[in-house]
């Protein structure tokens, strides 16, 4: 009996020692993993012997084309490029921000946002400066692109964000936002040609009412589309210089010319030009309505050519600049399409740059333009476009975009501006009231900037 007890005691001691050792090992393993010492977090393919470039994007319509181009590149060079799609764009943006904070960004990624966000990514070291590559061989690579497309990815000397000057992204495609008109619906409403002036445009409202046709659709439930429209007319009514002075805080939003910009939306609402429910409409719905011939006009970007072709291949429509109201040159919102950035901490930085250089070559850009019906960023590929896409391409030189402006408006002012326009459209507030409200937000933000 004594012998059995002794054996039991020995077993207990051994078992406890085993458990102790087991827990110590587990604990070490846990710490090792949690601290990331195991390596490979976020860029799990680093330990693979062959080069694998990871790329994240949000472009659902281009995913198959990217996969095809990646396969071609691997066949040609042996370098594997893995494209991962994260959609919709809001989710993609959140993923990129979270990855930046965690230090797990892929080798290639794109940024959706304002220039100040782009600047923050650069300052934090998440984006590589491509200037030396772009300027090599008499700037051969840089000169391939539309100047507007490069400008969006460029920080000039003495920029307000204090970013080291240079080009920080490779443009993939360009876009601009214009007005589209349905030829059949205009004819049905007894309108012979698209409007050339603002007054002609407003006068069409009566004809739309008589014929039961709805006017303009656009994704004005997404704030930025309202901003595009208003910005076009701000340039047209007061000129670029005055717009920039307003952003600098030298001219108030209560200026009569700004009130005139706000008033355009009231005029459209009062003259039956706007589609019923446009203020909460997302752009996808607006695209469906225009493609299904439920609205005579659409305010949409050049990407719509692909979208409409998918929704209604027989849609007969034309492209036009929004009808002018003022005396200054109307500038369309555009230039910025999608761009790819190189992770500043990528282990395969040179290989990544080489791939992007190949991707922006004529052959690949022509393939992307043909398959996805987007305007290529490479200006040498612009010749083989459909008539509608060519109309968009023609307007590229008359485009502008906040990301190429020397000064940038505060996000809260933009929000107050866009929400204010919604309030005007639904008849809740007058243009003058909105101008006062926007100016109040502007002054508050200016004071805050002085304080911090």
């Amino acid at each position, binding site marked *: 009996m004594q012998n059995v007890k002794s054996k039991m005691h020995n077993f207990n001691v051994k078992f406890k020692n085993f458990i102790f050792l087991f827990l110590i090992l587990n604990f070490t393993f*846990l710490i090792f993993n949690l601290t990331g010492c195991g390596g490979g977090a976020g860029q799990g393919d680093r330990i693979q012997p062959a080069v694998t470039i990871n790329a994240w994007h949000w472009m659902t319509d281009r995913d198959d084309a990217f996969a095809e181009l990646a396969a071609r590149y691997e066949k040609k060079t042996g370098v594997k490029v893995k494209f991962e799609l994260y959609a919709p764009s*809001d989710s993609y943006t959140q993923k990129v921000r979270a990855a930046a904070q965690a230090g797990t960004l892929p080798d290639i990624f794109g940024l959706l946002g*304002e220039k100040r*966000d782009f600047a923050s990514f650069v300052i934090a070291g998440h984006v590589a400066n491509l200037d030396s590559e772009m300027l090599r061989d008499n700037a051969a690579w840089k000169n391939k692109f539309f100047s507007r497309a490069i400008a969006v990815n460029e920080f000039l000397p003495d920029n307000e964000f204090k970013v080291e000057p240079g080009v920080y992204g490779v443009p993939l495609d360009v876009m601009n936002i214009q007005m589209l008109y349905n030829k059949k619906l205009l004819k049905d409403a007894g309108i012979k040609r698209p409007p050339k002036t603002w007054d002609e445009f407003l006068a069409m409202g009566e004809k739309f009412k008589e014929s039961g046709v709805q006017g303009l659709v656009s994704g004005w439930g997404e704030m930025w589309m309202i901003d595009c429209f208003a910005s076009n007319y701000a340039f047209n009514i007061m000129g670029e210089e005055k717009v920039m002075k307003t952003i600098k805080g030298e001219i108030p939003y209560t200026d009569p010319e700004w009130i005139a910009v706000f008033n355009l939306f009231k005029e459209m609402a009062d003259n039956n030009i706007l589609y019923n*429910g446009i203020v909460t409409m*997302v752009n996808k719905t607006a695209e469906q309505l225009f493609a299904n011939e439920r609205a005579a006009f659409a305010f949409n970007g050049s990407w719509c050519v692909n979208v409409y072709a998918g929704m209604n291949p027989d849609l007969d429509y034309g492209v036009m600049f929004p009808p002018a109201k003022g005396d200054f040159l109307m500038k369309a919102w555009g230039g910025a399409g999608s761009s790819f950035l190189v992770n500043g901490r990528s282990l395969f930085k040179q290989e990544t740059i080489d791939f992007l250089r190949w991707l922006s070559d004529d052959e690949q850009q022509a393939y992307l333009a043909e398959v996805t019906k987007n305007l290529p960023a490479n200006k040498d590929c612009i010749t083989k476009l459909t008539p509608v896409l060519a109309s968009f391409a023609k307007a590229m030189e008359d485009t502008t975009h906040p990301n190429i402006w020397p000064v940038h408006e505060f996000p809260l002012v933009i929000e107050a501006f866009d929400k204010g326009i919604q309030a005007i459209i639904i008849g809740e507030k007058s243009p003058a009231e909105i101008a006062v409200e926007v100016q109040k937000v502007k002054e508050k933000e200016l004071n805050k900037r002085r304080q911090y």
Partner: protein
Amino acid sequence: MNGKLKSTLINYLFVLPAVLIFAIFYIYPFLKVFQLSMVEWDGILPTMQFIGLDNFKEIMQDKIWWDSMWHAGYITLIALTFQNGLALLLALVCDREIKGRNFFRVLFFVPPILSEVVVGLVWQWILDGNYGILNNLLSSIGLHSLVHNWLSDPKTALTCIAIVHSWKGFGWGFIIMLAGLQTIPRQLYEAARVDGAGSWQMFSKVTLPLMIPVFSMVVILTILGSMQVFVLIIAMVGQGLVYHTTVPVLRILGAMTGSSRFGYACAQGIIFGLILIIISFTQKKFSEKIKQA
């Protein structure tokens, strides 16, 4: 190492993984939110600027924030009354021996398991001002004066959202209340009937008092769920109809991803969390008092 110390260490080691996970995934983020609420930071830049309680001061003066709180409160109020009233009514019906009650139990639980995005888009289509079923129905029965764009009118947009939210959520209350009703001993009803109690007396003197703990739980779940609604709103009205459909979670999301104000968003999150805690505790105390009475 003596045996007792070793044994103590082993005990601690057993607990350690759980403590570590709790600390890393709960305590650290919680403290980090407090730290971030006192800085001006865009979420990306390597530097943060300490600004003390300025974010909290700004929230106190932020009219849009407090309006959004009122909107969430309005949605919650409709959910507490309409949603839970409907849930109780249907639970009472399904608690009886009626034909096909299992079918109804399944049917009433379908809306909660549907995706909020799907529900939002389907209702957006129903409420559409141009081609919506609701307007067609109103026209066909001669109520032309009521036909309008429900989601683009500030007078109706938030109420529509609240009703759709209630429609989607009543199934949870229904299931919990039905489970609660089934725990009430049938003998109590029989005894009440023997004593001459009618249907209303049985409901008010037997069912209601015994259901108070269930009501309490349903009310807390409704408040927490309704105050935090936002996916449905995005699906129905995009980024919103001016500020008429804005709720606190959308403001927090907007501050974080739209305006790149991480610190302000964290401060909003803390204030919102505190308000929810206060509401929950008040409601709990209130329920306890009713129960004691």
